[in-house]
């Protein structure tokens, strides 16, 4: 469903991604792990063009997204994103955060959008907070709203950029539980994470990145149980 070919990304002269090839199937949950600075967030951000690709190609359902003719807004509407810092819109209440994009882009009526919004908020367990503002919510609650906001566009895939890294430890679980639910419903997900337990339990594939390369890739059992590469072993030895 998402295919990445020979992806290179430079920030100025610094080469952050040094040729990534990968393919993600529909309904797969791919967890990307690796040390800081390994390029995993950049890799994720390239997939919906939040970072401009320097070289290579990214295809989403056979449409090359980094081609000049491609309407990137239409592609982004199909690929949701959840950020480390939540990035909820502070001037809108929770339900408006969720309904804004479907109303703006899908031209959904307010009534339909709000119905969808309440459904999604129920799904993340926060319908009671529909008329609260982001600043009134805990970090974990904000991140769950952010997931509902991404779901409101009915995306074909969701990208998670370290969704629990900015959370207090006791709030990590509520967010991971929502993500687990999504995975069990068959959502295609790419998750950059430091939560090894989540990667092992929920991931269909685990990708280990280091130094701008995909060093190793496999099922959670393969990566966590029997890593082949020395760098993977060294990294897992430190974090597990």
């Amino acid at each position: 469903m998402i295919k990445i070919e020979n992806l290179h990304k430079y920030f100025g002269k610094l080469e952050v991604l040094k040729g990534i090839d990968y393919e993600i199937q529909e309904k797969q949950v791919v967890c990307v792990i690796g040390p800081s600075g390994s390029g995993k967030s950049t890799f994720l951000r390239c997939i919906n063009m939040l970072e401009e690709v320097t070289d290579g190609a990214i295809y989403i359902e056979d449409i090359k997204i980094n081609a000049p003719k491609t309407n990137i807004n239409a592609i982004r509407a199909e690929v949701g994103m959840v950020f480390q810092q939540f990035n909820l819109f502070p001037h809108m209440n929770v339900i408006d955060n969720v309904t804004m994009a479907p109303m703006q882009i899908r031209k959904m009526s307010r009534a339909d959008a709000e119905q969808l919004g309440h459904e999604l908020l129920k799904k993340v367990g926060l319908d009671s907070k529909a008329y609260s503002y982001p600043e009134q919510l805990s970090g974990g609650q904000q991140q769950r709203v952010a997931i509902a906001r991404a779901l409101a566009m009915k995306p074909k895939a969701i990208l998670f950029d370290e969704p629990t890294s900015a959370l207090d430890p006791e709030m990590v679980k509520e967010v991971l539980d929502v993500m687990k639910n999504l995975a069990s419903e068959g959502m295609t997900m790419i998750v950059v994470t430091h939560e090894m337990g989540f990667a092992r339990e929920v991931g269909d594939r685990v990708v280990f990145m280091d130094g701008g390369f995909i060093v190793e890739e496999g099922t959670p059992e393969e990566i966590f149980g029997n890593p082949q590469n020395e760098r993977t072993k060294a990294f897992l030895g430190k974090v597990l």
Partner: protein
Amino acid sequence: MDIFDLQWDIVWNYRDMFIRGIGITIILTLSGYFGGIILGLLLGLGKLSQNKLIYWPCKLYVDLFRGTPMLVQILLIHLAVIPTIFGQSLGYMVSGITALVLNCAAYNAEIFRAGIQSIDKGQMEAARSLGLTHNQAMKKVILPQAFRRMIPPLGNEFIALLKDSSLVTVIAAPDILYASKVVAGASFRFWEPYIVAALLYLVLTYVVTKVVAFIEKRFSNSYVPRKAEGREAR
């Protein structure tokens, strides 16, 4: 002591002129300010543009108008620019408002630019990741947040413009200061007319200060509507 022998009736005899002057000052300031907001927003957005053909003219404009005295701008516009373009003067009102708009816009542009840039870039990314275009994201997400941060500096700019509008006296616009000059010229008394001018400006800026303070308070810190506060507490 001669200077304490103040004769306020001199000013009182010219009260109609002062009242008209207040009107002119208010019209000039309001027109200049709201024109300056619209033009300033465009210039501010222009200064944020990646396109060099948009960025550089906007930057040049702002640098030019912030780097030269308003008095010089007023004289140039009234005596040189407008007569050259239209073949004749269009009167103090057109020249005065034009000068104030153009000048105020340069300052407002910087306020808008800074306000927009102060919004965390994650907000734009989140909006774009949902599929909003850059313009939609600006309108729905960035500007509503940025405007709130712009209120204090925009209030200061209004007060500054109100005072600076007195410079149009130089092209014989009959504002508050002009009335004082006429009184002074006719009576050779200087304390009374200029004290009155100062007091009138002081009253006007005081009123504006209060209004700005009210608006600031109304939009301070929290986005949570007052009524909902507490009720929706975590």
